């Protein structure tokens, strides 16, 4: 079966972001960019499905600027067969991205779409669920295990308080949680091979999708800094402070 994997170019997870002084956003100039960690897990899962002979073709898709080709090349190096960039310099919201992905799903007809559960920049946690709504497919969000049998997909999900197992009819949308797998590193030969794999570029207009937004970011500010407190010398002093100063016990 064909698997579609969505990947997003985001600030590297090791970068400590800074808010711009004018409050217009975070400063991304000269900052390392990478594939969103949850998307790496999505690519890895698709590659494992192919290695087990379940997936026959993996198509990686990204919505973003021309530089997002780098992340698609990474996906190709990890094992995706071909890639599609929906190129836009606008920062799109989840609904617009979901509509673009829906257009790709209509064309590619994958049996399974795997996305990350959230991107570590906008922290929306929406795109997979929205794509599921637009396609009418079942959704297995926050997946920690996938098991395919016939035209059914068993998904173990990370939920508050434990794990939940659902059975979904295919085609379906899955969003990845951290424990689904541990992504591999791309090997040098595979990085070289990835350069020759097909990467197509289209625009939202080519797909006939309007990406207008009703959400406006008025300002972005740094969170309130927490002041470091004091060091206590002993357990007795700690208990005394918690009882009499903080009054929390």
């Amino acid at each position, binding site marked *: 079966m064909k698997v579609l994997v969505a990947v997003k170019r985001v600030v590297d997870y090791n970068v400590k*972001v800074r808010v711009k002084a004018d409050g217009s956003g975070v400063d991304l100039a000269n900052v390392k960019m990478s594939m969103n960690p949850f998307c790496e897990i999505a690519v890895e899962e698709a590659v494992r499905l192919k290695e087990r002979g379940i997936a026959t073709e993996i198509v990686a898709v990204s919505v973003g600027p021309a530089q997002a080709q780098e992340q698609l090349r990474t996906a190709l190096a990890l094992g995706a067969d071909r890639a599609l960039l929906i190129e836009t310099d606008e920062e799109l919201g989840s609904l617009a991205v979901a509509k673009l992905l829906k257009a790709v799903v209509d064309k590619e007809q994958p049996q399974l779409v795997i996305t990350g559960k959230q991107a570590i920049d906008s922290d929306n946690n929406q795109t997979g669920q929205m794509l599921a709504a637009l396609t009418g497919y079942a959704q297995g969000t926050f997946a920690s295990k996938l098991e395919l049998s016939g035209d059914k997909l068993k998904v173990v999900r990370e939920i508050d*308080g434990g794990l939940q*197992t659902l059975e979904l009819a295919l085609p379906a949308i899955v969003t990845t949680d951290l424990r689904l797998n541990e992504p591999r590193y791309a090997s040098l030969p595979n990085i070289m091979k990835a350069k020759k794999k097909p990467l197509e570029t289209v625009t939202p207009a080519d797909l006939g999708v309007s990406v207008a937004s009703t959400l406006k970011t008025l*300002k972005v500010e740094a969170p309130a800094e927490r002041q470091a407190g004091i060091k206590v010398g002993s357990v007795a002093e700690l208990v005394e402070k*918690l009882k009499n100063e903080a009054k929390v016990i």
Partner: protein
Amino acid sequence: MAILVIAEHDNAVLAAATLNTVAAAQQIGGDLHVLVAGSGCSAVAESAAKIAGVAKVLVADDAAYAHLLAENVAPLIAGLAKGYSHVLAPASTNGKNYLPRVAALLDVEQISEIVAVESADTFKRPIYAGNAIATVQSSAPIKVISVRATAFDAAAGEGGSASIEALAGAGEAGTSSFVGEELAKSDRPELTSARVVISGGRGLQSGENFGLLYALADKLGAAVGASRAAVDAGFAPNDMQVGQTGKIVAPDLYIAVGISGAIQHLAGMKDSKVIVAINKDAEAPIFQVADYGLVADLFEVVPELEKQL
């Protein structure tokens, strides 16, 4: 203008996060209705009707809603939403699962995990793992919003007398089914609503050593959490994880034991009222956010702390 709040529950008990979500709705202002979608959930509906300030409780009691599967519950909520200016749900794993599906069915953008209400159309929400706070304004006809429960003080759970109205269920979508659930059983309070949380990190060295924290937690009536490092090392199950990729907590007292304080952990607990850090490394970043730091060997001081309480 009327607001619909989606209740969080397990068909037996109304979850506390519902009260925080109602509080966020009250800050927006308007007639407040609560939807209880579930199966055999009449006790939940009765609890919801007692929440102060709620005018009406809608109950959709149908086997299809027993586990709040998004495929079944999203069309129900989207159908109701057209009569409201705002639809709010807690940003629990349930809310995060069904709410974007509702928003997309309505063709509106969702505002995720708000931490403050500025006005009826303007909200604050954390981005970049809480390293920045965005103020966003929505011109969508229906504002679909998930609420970070810890950012709002709970509405009063008693004193209201809302009317209860039964809705017909829309049945199964037929694309998904519930197979099973493995829930951690614990007599301790739930992590996200506990007044005191004690979390352990890699410094605990093993899963067995978490026993030290459990003993202390039982003394304090606390919930026990873990850092991602401790979860990755297999010391604790993932549902105990506190941090950006786990649970967000904001208790009155947070005790971090053997936790260095990675950014991703701080994102999950830095809004706690009082933070205590116990770590033998005086340079650990956790001390930069702790109100009270104790530089010591946790294996000596945790049992001592338990004795002195």
